[in-house]
Structures are given as C-alpha cells and as structure tokens.
C-alpha cells in the first residue's frame, strides 16, 4: 500500500484553513438573533433593500444573458483569430474578475458620470440611480456567465452542428436548436453564478450608485450600514444573503463547468 502523504505537518495548516473558512459562518449562525428574526426581516427598510437587490440582480442576470451568451460564443470560436486581438478580448473579459470592485465603480463613473467620457453627452443622469446599480452588477458579474458558457461551448462536440447543417439547418437554426440547448447546463450554471455575484455586489455599486434607500441601497450596502446602527439587523441581513448563496451552491452542485475553475 502506498504511504499517505497526509502527515500531521499537512493536517495542521489544512485544519486551520478549514477553520478560517468555516468558523465565521458558524459564528454568524450562532450569534444570529433568531428570536427577533421575523421582526427584523419584516422591517420596511429591510424588505426594501431585499426587493431592490433581488430585482436588480435579476435584471443584471438577464442583461448578462442577452449580452454575455453572444460574447461567449465569439470567445469560444476565436481560436483561429490572430493572437493579439484574441488575447486582448480574453483579458478584457477576465479583468472584472480580478479588478477590485471599487475600481470598477470609479471607472464606471469616469465613463458614465456627469462629466464622463460618454456621460457628458447623455441627456439623463445614470450615476446614483437604480440603472447604475444594474450596470455596476453587470460589470462585475457578467464575466462569470461568459466564462461558464464559453467553457461549455468549447467542450461541446461541434460535429453535431455539422450534422444539423447536412439536415438543412441554417446557422441561426443550428445555434438556436443545437448549440445553445447542448450548452444549456453551462448557461444555467453561469446564470446562477452571475446572479449570486450580482446579489453580493458592494464596492462598484456604492461607488457608482451610492446608497439611497429604495433606489440604490441594495442588501449588502444596507447590511454594512446597519452594522453601525443596529448590529442585530445587520446579522439578520447577512444571514439572508448567506442562505441565498448556499441555495445557489446546492443548485450548482454537479453543474460546475470547466472553464470556470481554470
């Protein structure tokens, strides 16, 4: 039998890592004001923030689907492009994943703000509106969807598309009836990841959209602000966000797609 490399020297740091990841969540559950939870969660400002978060994250996910699936298809089929534009495009999609969200918020202000690159020409104001919340969420969350769908498209067998063409299908029909249905698991996994990322968005939102109750004050922002005023309410809100995230994780279980992890 092979000797295991799992010596105590490995178990100790690994155990610390597990504690670091798990104990905060335990603390959140243990210290949650369970008795007051119904009252805390039924407050107007909480319901307002929850509603705004669910609505904006849903719209951001829809926008990401409409714009992100075509981008994922372009990206998946960019293999025969010259190296420079191909790498630039890939970098562009990946940047929001590594960029601090607050930097994304500043960048969005510089583009769409009142004196921004594009914003100065607009007859209406985008920053500090609900629209700004959605734009900030799309900016940070869409790459998750794009990379998930792209991975699924790359992994799917292109010969099914060939077979469809010999059956008389045009490129549009092939896309609609063969390519997209075959990558549907990747699309739903990507959409769920995108939704949770949008739901948790904080940095870009508060920078670009501010914190106006009912207009731009989403659940994470409300949580942060409540922590100064009413810690119990903050805990209750955190618990809500955690439940949603865990629910998404459970839904994703086996649909984790290649391309996200690499």
């Amino acid at each position, binding site marked *: 039998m092979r000797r295991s490399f799992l010596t105590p020297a490995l178990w100790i740091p690994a155990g610390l890592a597990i504690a670091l990841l798990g104990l905060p969540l335990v603390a959140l559950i243990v210290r949650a004001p369970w008795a007051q939870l119904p009252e805390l969660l039924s407050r107007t400002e909480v319901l307002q923030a929850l509603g705004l978060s669910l609505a904006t994250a849903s719209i951001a996910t829809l926008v990401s689907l409409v714009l992100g699936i075509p981008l994922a298809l372009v990206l998946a089929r960019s293999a025969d492009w010259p190296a420079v534009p191909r790498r630039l495009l890939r970098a562009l999609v990946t940047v929001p994943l590594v960029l601090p969200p607050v930097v994304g918020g500043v960048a969005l202000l510089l583009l769409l703000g009142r004196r921004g690159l594009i914003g100065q020409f607009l007859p209406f104001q985008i920053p500090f509106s609900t629209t700004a919340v959605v734009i900030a969420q799309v900016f940070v969350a869409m790459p998750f969807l794009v990379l998930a769908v792209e991975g699924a498209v790359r992994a799917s*067998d292109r*010969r*099914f598309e*060939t*077979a*469809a*063409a*010999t*059956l*008389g*299908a*045009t490129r549009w*029909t092939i896309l609609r*009836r*063969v390519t997209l*249905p*075959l990558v*549907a698991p990747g699309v739903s996994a990507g959409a769920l990841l995108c939704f949770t990322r949008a739901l948790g968005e904080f940095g870009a939102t508060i920078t670009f959209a501010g914190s106006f109750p009912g207009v731009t004050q989403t659940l994470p922002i409300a949580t942060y602000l409540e922590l100064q005023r009413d810690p119990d309410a903050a805990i209750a809100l955190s618990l809500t966000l955690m439940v949603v995230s865990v629910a998404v994780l459970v839904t994703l279980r086996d649909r984790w797609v290649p391309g996200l992890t690499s």
Partner: protein
Amino acid sequence: MSLTAELRADRGAFSLDLAFAVEPGGTLALVGPNGAGKSTTLGAIAGLVPNRGTVRVGDRVLDELPVEQRRVGYVFQDYLLFPHLTVLENVAFGPRATGMPRAEARQAASDWLARLDLAALAQRRPAQLSGGQAQRVALARALATDPEVLLLDEPLAALDVEIRADVRAELASHLADYAGLTIVVTHSLADVAALAHGVIVLERGRATQRGSLAELTAAPATAYVERLTRPVE
C-alpha cells in the same frame, strides 16, 4: 437524376483526386484502407470539405451551394443523433429546419419512424437506444429531409458483430426503397455485396480499381484489393 463528381481536395500532405458518376437510384461503394480519403470524399460532396473540382446532381452544381442547401443526407459513422432531442424530434429536425410547420414535421417524422419500424421508440432519447436502433434513427433522420444523395459513412462499423448481418439486410431493403442515389463507405465486402451496385477502391486519394464486386474478386489490381478479396481461411 445522376451524380457526377470531380473531387480535388487537399488536407495537408494528403490530396484527393477522384472522379466518378453514380446513376439514378444507384449505390456506389467506396472501399479502401484507413486514410485513403473515403471520408474526405463524402465531406467534399456534402460541402464539409472544400472541393476544387465540381459535383453535379442532375443540373445542380453542388459546389455553389452551402451545406444546408445541397440536399445531401449524411449518416455519420457514430450517427451524431442530437442527445437533447427525442427520436421523434431528431427525425423531425430536418423537415422543421427546412421550414415545415411543427405539426406537419412531426407527422412526417412519425411516418418515417413507422416505415423503419421505429414507432415504438419515438419518445426515447438517443442514449436509450441500442446501436442498431440508433443506426436506423440516423437513417430515418437523413431520409426525412428527402435528400437527392444519401451518404453512409461506415454505417455498420459501430455495431456489434452479431447484429451486423441483420442490420445490413434491413439497410439493404431500405436503400432499395430509396429513390435517390447512395454512396456508402465501408471496409467490408459483405456490405458491398449487400448494398452496392458498383465499387471504387480508393488508396492514398486515388482510385486504384473500379468495377463490380465480381470483377474485383476475379482480378485484384493492387495488393490491398488482393488482401481484401482473399477468401477467409
């Protein structure tokens, strides 16, 4: 309607240079060792491989048409049935894609399934089919598009040896009913005997012998044909 094909295609160091004609209703067999260009030949006719020659079916020049307008049915070696569609939806796919209304397409597909004795499997997914069943579904799917040319790439190669003879006999009877012309790629003289009227031996992208099975057996032109036609001891 007859088919005349002049095929000139390059794939890296490999080149295909082949000309042949198939009479209306006829079935041509292409045999040859691996890498001889058999699949390239089918691909060039279907429009999946660029062809520098000319392929005509009747008075239509196929090379001017995109794949989806060639009316060339292709049964792939591993069938490529759409895994996300039922058997019925797979067969209805071609008629639907060419603009037939949904209900009509499903009816047409049902008719084809009935003709190929597949009606009981209509609601199954490809993953739930045996090899022989999948082969028949692939044939039904190609025929449902009403192709003028039917290409079969090693139609029996993916099947278990025990059932090949039965499936071959069925395939022969379906091809006999089919009005268009057929080109079948195979490694097996039994397929040639059961399915085809004439045969072309393809080696390294060139035809090395043409004729009937009897002519090949009587006077093999190359070592490959000699080995192929030698009686099994």
